[in-house]
């Protein structure tokens, strides 16, 4: 169910129970509404209010933390993708095809993860996405470095691509 739906249902329940309380007051005989009984009601409500305040505070802070963590991960992934691409550029012109493969894999991953409807974190590990990255890594391993610099760039690119998978 959508968050808006859940929020509305909670609102209806909560406001409905407030209305129920108002209605109960008109039903109850006067001797139920003395100061003493009202004090008990106040104290129980206070107890629950403290409990709800703590739980809601905790839930909001943990939800915010997980949201920030995902935002951070997106940013780190973006920077790794750029660094990986720079490593391939430095390797030499023979990586053009590999870079196109990377471009396609990343583009499809973005579309899959940030799709308008029905996207979930589970799609981060979707098999199709992994297949794209594995194809890219196989291509990367097939490169035949001719000197030490190219070897260094290849292993650097492989390390970044491992972190991306």
């Amino acid at each position: 169910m959508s968050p808006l739906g859940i929020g509305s249902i909670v609102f209806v329940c909560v406001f409905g129970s407030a209305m129920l309380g108002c209605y109960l007051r008109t039903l109850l005989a006067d001797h139920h509404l003395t100061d003493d009984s009202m004090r008990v009601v106040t104290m129980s409500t206070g107890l629950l209010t403290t409990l709800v305040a703590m739980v809601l505070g905790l839930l909001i802070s943990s939800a915010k933390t997980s949201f920030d963590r995902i935002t951070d991960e997106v940013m780190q992934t973006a920077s790794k993708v750029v660094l990986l691409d720079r490593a391939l550029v430095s390797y030499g012109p023979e990586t053009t095809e590999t870079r196109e493969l990377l471009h396609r894999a990343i583009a499809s991953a973005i579309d899959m993860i940030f799709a308008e409807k029905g996207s979930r974190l589970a799609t981060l590990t979707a098999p199709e996405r992994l297949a794209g990255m594995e194809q890219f890594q196989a291509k990367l391993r097939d490169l035949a470095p001719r000197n030490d610099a190219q070897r260094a760039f290849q292993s650097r690119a492989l390390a970044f691509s491992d972190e991306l998978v």
Partner: protein
Amino acid sequence: MLPLFLAVLVLWLAIIFVGLGVHTANNSIVLVTLFAAALSVSGAVFLIEELDHSLDGLIQVSSAPLRNALTQLGP
């Protein structure tokens, strides 16, 4: 949020608001106040649900960093 967890939370909230309703006289300012309080609390639950589903809905993780990176890749 787990459904059972949410159910217990709503139960607590309902008890609090029944208590508030019993406690007060029936007039429009009380009604408006209770309405605002109920709206705030359900707003908090809505926020928690939205932040939990961070890849869709009204509050989303921005895909801008990744899309920026993609424009830099240009073969």
